[in-house]
C-alpha cells in the first residue's frame, strides 16, 4: 500500500456540472415547493376525472349557481356544473397548450439564437432587427392576426405564443453563443472543416443548454399566463372545455350578482400554477448561477 493517497484531481471536481445542478436543485426549497405545485396540477390534468366527484361537463339546471356546500365544495355555475370538478379537470388544456407553446418558442428561439450568434455580421443584423420589430408588436395584435389567418384553435394559440416568445429566447441564446464563439474550440472546429451546422448544433449547443433551460422555465410561467389570458378573451381554447380562463370569461358577469365562487376558484388555480412554475424557474436559475 502506498503511504500517500495521490489523486490527480480535487475531489470537488468529480461530479459532473449537470449532476451538480441536479443536487443543488434537490436542496433548493423554492424549487421543490414550485415543483410540488406543478406536479399537483399535472396529476389533476392526467387523472382528474378519476377523483372529480362529478362529470365536469354535466349540467344540472335545477342546481344552477348553488353556493359552496357539502355536495358542491366550490358551488355550481350558471348551468349547474360542479365548479370543483371543473377546476380539477380544467388544468388539462392549459397544461398542454402552454408547454407546447414554450417548446415551440425554445426550439425556434434556440435556432435563431444559434444562427445570429454564430454568423454574426450581416445575418445577425438583419435577423436581430426583424426580431426586435416583432417583439415590439403586442401579443394581442399577433393573436388577432393569427386568428384571422388560421381560425381559432389550440394550434393557433400554440403558434401565437410560441412565435411571440421565440425572439426573447433567441436573444438569450444569441448572447450565450456570442461568448462561446470566441472560445478556441470553435476555431478548432473550423480547422477541421466542420460545417456550420455541425459547429452550431454539436459543438456550441451543448454548452449553451444551461441558459436555455433557465429561460425556458421562466417563459413557461409567462406562457401559462398568456394562454389563460387568451382563452379569457375567447381565443383558442373553446367551450365546453372546463379551462380556467374560459370559465372565468363565461362567468365573470356573475360576480356582480354575488356568485363569486364561479370565478374565484379558477382564478386561484391559475395563480397557483403560475406561482408554482415561477418558483421552480427561480430554483433552476439559482442552481445554474450558484
Amino acid at each position, binding site marked *: 500500500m*502506498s*503511504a*500517500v*493517497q*495521490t*489523486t*490527480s*484531481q*480535487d*475531489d*470537488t*471536481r*468529480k461530479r*459532473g*456540472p449537470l449532476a451538480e445542478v441536479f443536487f443543488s436543485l434537490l436542496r433548493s426549497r423554492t424549487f421543490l415547493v414550485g415543483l410540488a405545485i406543478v406536479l399537483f396540477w399535472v396529476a389533476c390534468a392526467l387523472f382528474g376525472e378519476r377523483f372529480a366527484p362529478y362529470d365536469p361537463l354535466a349540467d344540472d339546471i335545477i342546481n344552477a349557481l348553488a353556493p359552496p356546500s357539502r355536495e358542491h365544495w366550490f358551488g355550481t355555475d350558471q348551468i349547474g356544473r360542479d365548479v370543483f370538478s371543473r377546476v380539477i379537470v380544467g388544468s388539462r388544456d392549459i397544461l398542454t397548450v402552454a408547454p407546447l407553446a414554450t417548446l415551440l418558442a425554445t426550439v425556434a428561439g434556440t435556432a435563431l439564437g444559434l444562427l445570429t450568434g454564430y454568423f454574426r455580421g450581416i445575418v445577425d443584423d438583419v435577423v436581430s432587427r426583424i426580431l426586435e420589430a416583432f417583439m415590439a408588436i403586442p401579443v394581442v395584435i399577433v393573436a388577432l392576426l393569427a386568428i384571422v389567418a388560421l381560425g381559432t384553435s389550440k394550434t393557433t394559440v400554440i403558434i401565437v405564443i410560441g412565435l411571440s416568445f421565440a425572439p426573447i429566447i433567441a436573444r438569450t441564446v444569441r448572447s450565450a453563443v456570442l461568448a462561446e464563439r470566441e*472560445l*478556441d*474550440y470553435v*476555431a*478548432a472546429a*473550423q*480547422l*477541421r*472543416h*466542420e460545417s456550420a451546422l455541425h459547429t452550431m448544433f454539436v*459543438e456550441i449547443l*451543448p*454548452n449553451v443548454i444551461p441558459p436555455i433551460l433557465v429561460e425556458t422555465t421562466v417563459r413557461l410561467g409567462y406562457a401559462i399566463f398568456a394562454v389563460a389570458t387568451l382563452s379569457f378573451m375567447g381565443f383558442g381554447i373553446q367551450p365546453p372545455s372546463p379551462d380556467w380562463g374560459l370559465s372565468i370569461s363565461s362567468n365573470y358577469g356573475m360576480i356582480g350578482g354575488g356568485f363569486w365562487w364561479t370565478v374565484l376558484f379558477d382564478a386561484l388555480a391559475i395563480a397557483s400554477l403560475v406561482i408554482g412554475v415561477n418558483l421552480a424557474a427561480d430554483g433552476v436559475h439559482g442552481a445554474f448561477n450558484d
Partner: protein
Amino acid sequence: MTEPAVAKNALELRDLSVAYRVAGRNRAVLRNLSLTIGQGEAYGLVGESGCGKSTVALTVVRYLPRNGSISGGAISLDGQDVMKLDAEALRRARAESVSMVYQDPGKALNPSIRIGRQLTEIFELGGITGQAATDRAIAMLNRVRISDPPSVMQRYPHQLSGGMQQRVAIAMALANDPSMLILDEPTTGLDATVEAEVLDLIAQLRRELSASILFISHNLAVVSNMCDRVGVLYAGMLVEEGPTEVVFNDPRHPYTVALLRCLPRGGQRKDQGRLDTIPGFLPGIGAVIKGCAFADRCALADDRCRTELPPLYELSDERGTRLSRCFHHDKAQSLPRATPADVAPAPKPASAPVLRVAGLNKTYASHGYPLRAVKDVSLDLRPGETLGLVGESGSGKTTFARLLLGLVPPDAGGTIELEGKALAPKLENRDDDQVKAMQIVFQNPDSALNRSHSIRHLIGRALKRLAGLRGAALEARLNDLVRSVRLTDRHLAVKPRQLSGGLKQRVAIARAFAGDPRIVVCDEPTSALDVSVQAAILNLLADLQSKEDVSYIFISHDLGVVRYLSDKIAVLYLGRIMELGPLEDVFSGPHHPYTEALLSAVPKLDQTETARIRLDGEIPSATNPPSGCVFHTRCPRKIGSICEQQEPPLAEAQPGHSIRCHIPYAELARLQKTAVAEPA
C-alpha cells in the same frame, strides 16, 4: 537592524494548519506550516499549483474564503497575534500594516471608478482629504514610476495596460506604508519586459521602504532574483527552506532538485537532451499523508519514507541555515532522472521549405483608424524545423499565427505557400489536405477543448475529419495517438474538466497531430502549466517532431522555452519582424537592440549576467506607430534623428540572419560586447 530592541519578526507562522470544507468534509491544505520572515526581509514561497501558496497569503490576513478555516497554529504579524484580533483590530491591521497584491490587477481595481478616486479613497480612510489626498496619490503614482500621474488619475482601469494596472495596484498596496507586503504571483500575467519592469520596481521599493515581503510565485527564476530566502512548499508543508542562492544552487530536497531540473537551463536545446520531469501528481487536498508527502514521486524513496514523516532537518554551514524535510537530504542531488536525457538524432533540414510566407499584412480597423497588426512579414520554414516567434504582447504573434491558419484573412497582396502551393487566404477555400496540414495547439486548453465532449470524442472526431478514418481503423489510430502523447485508455471516457492542465494540453496536442500535419502552430502551449508539466509537454513536442518530421511555429514569452525548442527565431515588434535568424545567432548576438532588451529582461536562475537593459514605457499603439524605426521611442541604442525619420530595412547581416536597424552589424557587435563586459 540598527535597533536591536525591535528584534521581533515581521511575520511568524507557527504550526499553521488550514482546511477547506468541501462536500461536507474538512480537507487539509496547509499542514503544520512554520515560517518566519524577518524585518525588511524578502521571503519567496515556491511550489506547484495547488500546493497552498495562495492559501498562506490569505491566511496571514485572515481573508480565507468562507469554506476555509484555520484548524491550528498561530500567526503573528509584527508581534501581534492575528488570531486574537477582533474585527476592528483586524480591519486596522489590514488597512495599515499588511497589503496584498494579486496576480490579477483587475481584482484590486474597481473597473467603474477612476484611478484617482480609488487612490484618494485610501487616504481618506486614513483621514487625509481634499488636495492633500490628491497630492499623496500623485506622489504614490510617481513612486511606482508612472509617467504623467495627473492624466492617469483621470482614467479608468481598462484604459491602462496590464503592466500599468499592476503598478497602480502596487501603488495602492503601498499607500499606507505597510510593514508587510504580500505579493501573490504579481507578474504572472505580464509580458517578460513588463514583468522585468515591475520586478525592478519592487526591488527598488524594497530599498526605499522598510517593508518585509512575502513573495509568492511558481517562477523559480523570478524568486531567485527577488528574494533573500526561499521556502519550497509541497502539499501544504514546507519541504525546504534557506537562503535563495544556496537553495537554488545546492538543493537538498529531491523535490527542489526535480523542480530545478525541469527548467531548460543554460541555453539547453532539444537536440542536446530531454528535460527532466516529475512523474505523478501533487496529493489532492485533504489527502491522508502517512510518510513523506513526496514519496510517491520520489525515486529515492524507501520504506521508511513511506511510513514515517521526515522531520525538518536543520543543515547549517557557512552559507547559512537551511531546512530540508528529507531523510536522504545528503544525497538529494543524486536523484535519478525521471526521463532519460537521450534523444533521437535531429532531422537534417536540407530539404525545400514546407512553408513560405511573403509580404504578409493584416490591417484591422480600430475606431475608424487602420491598425497594422502584421506588417510585411516574409519568412520560410523547413520540414522538421521550429520557428520561435517572440515579442511583447500586442506585437502580432497570435495574429500572424491566425493568418497562416486562415482563421483571419490577410490583406490582399501577400502570399502563403504550403509545399510549393499557394494557400487561399480564407480557411473555407482551402482544400481538406491543406487544412489538415496546418494545425494549432492553443494556449488555453479550457477554451480549446469543447467541455461538453469526451476525450474520445475530441480526438476521434479529429481523426475522422482530418485523417478520414472510420470504424476499426479509427480505433486503432486513436489508440496509437493516445499512447504517443502518453495518455492512457482510462482518460478517454472523461470530459476535459476531469483532467489536469497538463493532461488537457496533451489531448490538444493529440488532436493537432490527428491528420499528420506538416506544420503545427503552438501558441504559448505551456504558459498555463507548472514547470514539471511544462517539461513533459516540451519533451513530447520535441519527440513528436523528431518522429514525424513536423515543423513548429512556436510562440512563447518564455525565452528559455523558445530556445529549447527552436531552430530559428523571428522577433516581432508592432507587427514587424525586427530580427530573423538561426537560433544561436539571434541569442548569442550581435542582435537587434530590441532582442537585446528582451533577452536581458528575462529573470535568470543563475544571476551571472550583470548587464541589464530596460525598456521604458509602454509598447506604442499600433494604430499610430512611431515614425522611422518603430522601436525608436524605446530604443536604448538609438543613434539619432535618422532613427526617427527613416524606417530601416530588414537587412541580411549574415547569411540567414537579418536585422532591422540603422546600426551596422559590426557596430552592434562592438556595442553589445562591451555591454556584457561592463559591470552593472
